[in-house]
């Protein structure tokens, strides 16, 4: 197996990218867990935690992850036609849309549960389902980023 030494100038960009990705996935996991637990009591509080995790955690982390990705790509002069880069961009682009939708739905779910604590509705569950799909998608992206398949 041939080895390649990554240039030191890429390391800081990669650190930003990986840290952003890890914080993004972590906040998504926290958000989903909060919604799931909100079904068994203390609904409004956990819905609030879920919404805040998405708004103040996941969205900024996404930006950090994406800026880091562009930074790495510019440093490494990576071509666009490599499959694993395509997977990363594909997942990233679609996930931003779904992340925004999930955050809005989580906010609406919080507003509803504040107004009608006994009837929280399904918005929070839908948001959690979308976030779960995002986590799955990021899992695929992590696989593509690390294994770099043809």
């Amino acid at each position, binding site marked *: *197996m041939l*080895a*390649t030494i990554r240039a030191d100038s890429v390391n800081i960009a990669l650190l930003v990218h990986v*840290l952003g990705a*890890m914080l993004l996935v*972590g906040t998504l996991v*926290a958000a989903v867990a909060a919604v799931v637990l909100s079904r068994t009591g203390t609904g409004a509080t956990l819905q609030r935690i879920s919404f805040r995790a998405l708004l103040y*955690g996941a969205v900024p982390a996404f930006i950090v992850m994406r800026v880091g990705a562009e930074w790495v790509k510019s440093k490494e002069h990576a*071509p666009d036609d490599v499959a694993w880069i395509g997977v990363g961009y594909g997942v990233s682009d679609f996930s931003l849309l779904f992340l925004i939708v999930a955050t809005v739905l989580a906010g609406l779910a919080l507003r509803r549960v504040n107004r009608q604590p006994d009837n929280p509705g399904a918005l929070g569950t839908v948001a959690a389902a979308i976030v779960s799909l995002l986590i799955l998608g990021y899992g695929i992206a992590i696989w593509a980023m690390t294994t*770099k398949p043809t």
Partner: protein
Amino acid sequence: MSRRGVGAEGYSRARVTRYDWLLFLHVLSAFAIVGSVVVFTVVLLAARGADGAAALRLVPLARRLWDVGGAGTIVLGIWLAIDLDQYGVFDGWVIGAIVLWAVAAFAGFRLGTSLSEGDGGGAGLPYAVMTVAVAALLVVMIYKPGA
């Protein structure tokens, strides 16, 4: 550090190898560790306000993420170090990473235990130690000083 052959365009066309799978699972475990830190952060931030009691229900998740991520990173990391000719378990940066992992593991255990017992006041120090150790681990893993 990439272990792939480099073609004319800078990236290899090799198929996925055992090393790739080990690295993927190692990185996935690292995601679980950072996820644990994030969930602990959410719990502690919420505990500062009126949401504390409800947020404590997230503590078991944070502990399980740490258990899985911690075990995965150390086992797969050592496996990778043994498996690769370029690295050894006794390389300086690998030993440094193992020490940082141990510090983070101890602090994470203390943090989880403290929060599970409802002692939020005693969580500050282990949380800070765990967060700094995990951040340092990430820096060591990417920069691989001395490698």
